[in-house]
């Protein structure tokens, strides 16, 4: 039972601290800081548990660490949706913003101009080291695109014909 308690306490405290300091972190540190915070929270929780209750067996501590980092990664995926707007949700919010009168089709161009998604995503990929940008040409420089091969294989198994739909 202690492994479960350590996992929950470490995850909740690590995520809570991250959420509290998120606004103050420079953009490139917002996701990178998370594993360090979770690991620190885990070690502190593990130490306190050992002092107050009893030390965890190595296998239990390892399992608790894996689950803590897994929950942290799940939170990171949610965080990507918080840090970066989804085009579909941005459109849905814009329509909702106009209330019962509805969004005039004529306002679509203005909405597009206020939401430069392509620039945002290219900037993020360059910042993450996945792309290099010399001003005229973009080049693949990271490793993430290798995941596309695995992803394509999975989507083909599901019966899809291509990976992404734009």
């Amino acid at each position: 039972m202690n492994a479960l308690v350590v996992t929950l306490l470490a995850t909740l405290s690590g995520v809570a601290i991250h959420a509290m300091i998120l606004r103050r972190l420079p953009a490139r540190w917002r996701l990178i800081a998370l594993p360090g915070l979770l690991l620190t929270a885990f070690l502190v929780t593990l130490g306190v548990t050992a002092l107050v209750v009893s030390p965890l067996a190595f296998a239990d501590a390892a399992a608790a660490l894996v689950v803590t980092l897994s929950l942290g990664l799940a939170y990171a995926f949610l965080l990507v949706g918080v840090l970066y707007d989804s085009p579909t949700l941005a459109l849905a919010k814009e329509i909702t913003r106009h209330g019962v009168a509805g969004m005039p089709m004529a306002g679509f161009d203005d909405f597009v101009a206020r939401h430069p998604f392509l620039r945002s995503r290219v900037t993020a990929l360059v910042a993450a080291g996945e792309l290099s940008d010399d001003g005229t040409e973009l080049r693949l420089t990271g490793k993430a695109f290798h995941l596309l091969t695995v992803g394509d294989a999975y989507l083909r198994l599901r019966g899809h014909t291509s990976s992404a739909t734009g």
Partner: protein
Amino acid sequence: MVGLFAAALGIVVALVADIVAARRGAARVLAYGVGLLSGFAATLAAGLAAAPAEALATLGLAALAYGAWWFILLNLVQALESSLRVRLLGEIRAAGGRIRRDVLEARYSDAVLLRLRLDRLLSHGAVVERDGRLFLASRGLMLIAAFFGLLKKLLMGRRSEFEAL
């Protein structure tokens, strides 16, 4: 540690169930649901069978691990299907690993990609057009948009990445 093995088994079952459901023509959300529930049942069964003496702790850890892994996989699959970032990487990979900015911008202008999404929402009935005005008809989409709007406001202090602080 038994809980992790149970969760890993559950994930394998979830993936197989998702693939089978999708190939049998199930709608996307239904296929995900079938995968989620099948995998969760397998996780609980494996956890109970392997460690009946400490069932609660094992099942608790297994359920947390399974939930986290399933959510991560769901996000990865969703990203492969519709993420702009993944699409851009795929496009550059298909172009031989490099692409001119102007070529990419012509192919994926903000107007093109947002129009594509609007057309998709209109064709699925999530958005309806009446008298030259757009209305959101999907309560689910409304709730998800409101949920992320609230999270953005709480964590970032603004409702959009394009909104000035």
